[in-house]
């Protein structure tokens, strides 16, 4: 039975083995989250460019990409990458990947590709909120298409998209816990291991929850700060 006077965080935090597991877990969580965020953001910009081209097939392609990633649960995408696509690769590559933490690499790919769909949609709705007069005016003033995008449209679109981007960055961070299901030794995985070794479920989950919560709140606060910083006084 659960009894509160048994609650002993120190027992876990001062244990060398457990604290090493925790540190490793957080590091891997952060690596997975940051790498997949960067992958997602760069891919989202590529997707956005395709979507903005007048070519019909490119737009369809991006729409299909987004639909695919939004309608399949992230866990299933992770499994498809790690169990499915991994097995289709040539043997030499499989061996190389296995010796280079294949789980982490595939979780970064799967989470990054999935989140790119959401990021590109956020950016697109940010763009759509800009009145077309803005780009017409910029073009009339002599900007090239790319110049008007870079100096006039995107800075505004980015500001519009900020809240959604921050929300989705937080969910990307939280989704990194799913990598545990394919065996990445990130924070949730580490905590389960500590729990099964120490039989202190309450304490181990408590530590992980606090860590996740703190990091999520930091991302939210940093996002809010950035939004405020970037906002232009007097703009709508």
């Amino acid at each position, binding site marked *: *039975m*659960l009894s509160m006077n048994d609650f002993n965080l120190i027992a876990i935090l001062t244990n060398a083995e457990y604290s090493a597991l925790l540190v490793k877990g957080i590091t891997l969580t952060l690596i997975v989250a940051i790498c997949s965020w960067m992958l997602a953001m760069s891919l989202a910009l590529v997707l956005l460019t395709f979507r903005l081209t007048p070519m019909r097939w490119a737009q369809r392609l991006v729409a299909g990409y987004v*639909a*695919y990633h*939004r*309608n*399949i*649960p*992230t*866990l*299933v*995408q992770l*499994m*498809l990458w790690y*169990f*499915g*696509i*991994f*097995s*289709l690769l040539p043997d030499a590559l499989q061996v190389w990947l296995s010796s280079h933490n294949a789980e982490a690499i595939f979780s970064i790919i799967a989470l990054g590709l999935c989140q790119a769909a*959401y990021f590109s949609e956020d950016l697109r709705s940010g763009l759509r909120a800009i009145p077309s007069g803005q780009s017409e005016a910029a073009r009339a003033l002599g900007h090239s298409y790319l110049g008007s995008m870079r100096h006039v449209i995107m800075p505004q679109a980015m500001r519009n998209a900020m*809240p*959604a981007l921050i*929300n*989705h960055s*937080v*969910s990307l961070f*939280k*989704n*990194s*816990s*799913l990598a*545990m*299901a394919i065996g990445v030794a990130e924070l*949730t995985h580490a*905590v*389960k291991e500590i729990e099964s070794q120490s039989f202190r*479920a*309450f304490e181990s*989950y408590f530590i*992980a*929850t606090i860590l*996740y*919560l703190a990091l*999520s*709140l930091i991302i*939210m606060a940093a996002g809010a700060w950035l939004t405020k910083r970037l906002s232009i006084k007097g703009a709508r």
Partner: protein
Amino acid sequence: MLDFIQIIRDNWLLLLVGQYPNGPLGGIVCTLILSLLGILLAFPLSVPIALARLSERSWLRWPATMLVYGVRGVPLLMIILWVYFLLPTLIGHEVPGFATMLCTLVVYEATYLSEVVRSGILALPKGQLEASRALGHSYFGAMRHVILPQALFNTLPSMLSQFVSTLQETTLGYVINVPELTFAANQINNQLLTKPFHVFFILALTYFVVCFTLTKLFGLVEQHIARKRLGRATLPDSADASAAPAGTLPGLPTSTAKQLP
């Protein structure tokens, strides 16, 4: 291609209902029941949370806000682990995986739905509450007869897309051995061993078909609601609505801000 057909032909029953007549109900039926029950049970909880979040009394507002931020800041997987561990110790006897997952989904969805409900209430013109109070409604009377009917109707599209989210979240039941669709696919994969890509591709495709159909279907509902609201906005009694800039619906909640694990 033949392999795909072969796998589906041999295992369609397992994917559909799990080992049902001889074992627990599973597969896609389990997934659907779990998500439907989850959202239906979460809804009645979400309204009081939303009202508490909007309350002027700090002893109501603070716990609700903390709950919402707490649940939103922690991965669903972590909440599953908590329920998995806490529920049996609180009740005193074993809890099956299905019930554990259902409890988790109810807690998780209730907080997310409460944010949807809250945004729906906030999006209504302030005059609505003021007018109904002025007409002699009590706070709860005003909420029940004036505010909530409008807010809930307007947020229906977000709630429906929340259902698709819930459906995708049930996949995490796999971690605690709930026999839903993902679990069934893993069972098949463990039997075959040689065709992981085929099995997981079929799994992904199944989810895609279900979720895509639902999303499209709910899109039609959303259009219907948007049209109805446009019609209402022209009625003379909603001055606030007609004052809103053309093209934007007053109080139309932004489509779900939340995203799935």
